[in-house]
């Protein structure tokens, strides 16, 4: 087990290094410089800014400086937010995004899986159709429509909840629901397909031949086996949700991480983009590692050697 973890750690470090390197050079191939968009700056001032941040040095030198800082966990100063480090921006916005993500997952996971199970068990019956319709709606309606729709109904018409912002628990409900709906829909679809797949397996027939009831068969034989594909998608899903969603955070005016992913690229904020990419990468690699450990818990066939 220790050997396995060490091996995974080395592979993860190489992955992150590749990610950082490729992103670093790709960013520099983009035309323009970070200060060009600010119309007030003269060319001369832009050049002074470039040299202030060391962006006029040879590219390889910049790369090594960046890497050296990265090794110390230092993402550098943002080029757009004056006097703020990327680390501090992540530190202040990530918890908000993560909270929203966790809340949505906490809603979407149990409901999504339950609907998937229910719809597979009642295949072809009314419940199945209802679940499928919910799933299709959740997958096909984009979150900006769902978000504004929820705001219109619950905040403006019914005046039950605040329209936007991130202050009290009441503020979290609408964005959580908006985000959870699409997650739930995906989970329902995958769980349903997976359950139906398991239903066809011979061991389900064995379970029936033992005289077990249908409820028993679902709980002790089907669900666990059907969870394997869910786990596979759960790693990337959790990572992307916790990292914040641009659209939902924008609609509900939530000070999360999501907006920075988009703004840093359009503004050519090199250090910010680099920092977010590496942060996301580390997060994703960790999530996948946890999923691999969980695999072993669910399926003894892939349990790791001790």
């Amino acid at each position: 087990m220790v050997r396995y973890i060490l091996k995974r750690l080395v592979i993860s470090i190489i992955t992150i290094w590749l990610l950082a390197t490729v992103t670093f050079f790709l960013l520099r191939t983009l035309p323009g410089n970070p200060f060009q968009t600010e119309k007030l700056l003269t060319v001369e001032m832009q050049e002074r800014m470039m040299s202030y941040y060391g962006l006029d040095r040879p590219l390889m030198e910049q790369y090594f400086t960046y890497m050296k800082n990265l090794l110390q966990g230092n993402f550098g100063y943002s080029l757009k937010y004056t006097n703020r480090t990327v680390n501090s921006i992540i530190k202040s916005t990530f918890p908000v995004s993560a909270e929203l993500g966790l809340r949505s997952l906490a809603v979407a996971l149990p409901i999504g899986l339950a609907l998937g199970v229910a719809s597979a068990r009642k295949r072809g019956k009314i419940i199945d159709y209802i679940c499928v319709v919910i799933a299709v709606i959740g997958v096909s309606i984009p979150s900006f429509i769902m978000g504004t729709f929820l705001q219109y109904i619950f905040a403006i018409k019914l005046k039950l909840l605040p329209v936007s912002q991130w202050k009290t628990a009441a503020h979290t409900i609408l964005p959580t629901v908006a985000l959870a709906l699409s997650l739930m829909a995906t989970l329902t679809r995958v769980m349903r397909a997976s359950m139906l797949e398991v239903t066809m397996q011979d061991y389900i027939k064995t379970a029936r031949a033992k005289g077990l009831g249908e409820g028993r068969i679902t709980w002790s034989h089907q669900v666990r086996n059907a969870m394997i594909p869910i786990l596979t998608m759960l790693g990337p899903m959790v990572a992307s949700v916790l990292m914040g969603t641009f659209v939902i955070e924008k609609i509900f005016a939530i000070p999360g991480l999501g907006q920075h992913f988009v703004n840093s690229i359009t503004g050519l904020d090199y250090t910010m983009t680099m920092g977010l990419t590496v942060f996301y990468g580390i997060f994703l690699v960790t999530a996948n590692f946890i999923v691999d450990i969980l695999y072993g818990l669910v399926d003894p066939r892939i349990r790791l050697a001790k």
Partner: protein
Amino acid sequence: MSRKILEIKDLHFSFDTYAGEVQAVRGISLYLNKGETLAIVGESGCGKSVTVQTVMKLVPTPPGRLKSGKIIYCGEDITHYSQKEMQKLRGSEMSMIFQDPMTSLNPTMRIGRQITEGILKHENISPDKAKQRAIEMLAKVGIANPEKGFKRYPHQFSGGMRQRVMIAIALVCNPNVLFADEPTTALDVTTQAQILELINELKQELETSVVIITHDLGVVARTAERVAVMYAGKIVETGLSRDIFYKPKHPYTSGLLESMPSAGQVEKTLTSIKGTPPDLFAPPKGCSFAPRCKYCMNICTQTDPDEVQLENGHKVSCWLMNPQAEKRELPGRKSRLSTQKPLKEGI
């Protein structure tokens, strides 16, 4: 007639598909006496498995549909039992083992629990007692170190061992009837013999009646007292094993026996029955074996033959048995093949 533990009367079972109705079972009647082994023999797709799975109501309906017929178990008509009522019978009164032991066990559940959950379902005993019973059963089916085996997962066992576990699961509640649906088809030859021997032994010990489905006449010879030969959803010939082996009356049975290679065979090519079984979407008029039959007469393609009773309960459905037909001697098993469990010296 109280010796009959299970009786099937004129069973018709079909599958409704988009392409139409598949008549998988077309009027089957058979019975199983207490303590005996009955073999159902036939090619793939002739309705053997559907017949026994219908008795246990394991065929999903729809698409399956029981059209007519009666299933009588221990004097009780169970034809229209609900799934709830069947759940009480399954496992405790009748059990089944399947063809492929690699896929018949739940890969994510320990062997032990797969055995105890059946016991706990049917009997009101503590989990500890159930565990003891399961370990005893594992020992009985020949799993070395049963305490350890109890905690293992299916993938830690070989195919033969898994089939032993399947037998343990099936017999742990001491059912009256065991259906073995091609129990040795997926196993290699040496393991096959061991599994058949195990089924024979446990059958004696637990006084279980066995229905064994197979397409392998070698399996029949090793296990069964009586045989029913199925073709295209019907039973064409049934009788004691020795009558079927040495005095077959139906050309299909005779063809099956002829196509069995024997140890001393010198001819280079193996004998086979020419042609393929009929399409069960539209079963042919007359005898369904007629298109492949060497002895086919005009009448055979026109009308289905009636069943003719011979000695020792030997029954056959063939026009050749008609007094007006030309007398023919059908070839049976040539070399001596004992029907009395020649297991050990055979291997």
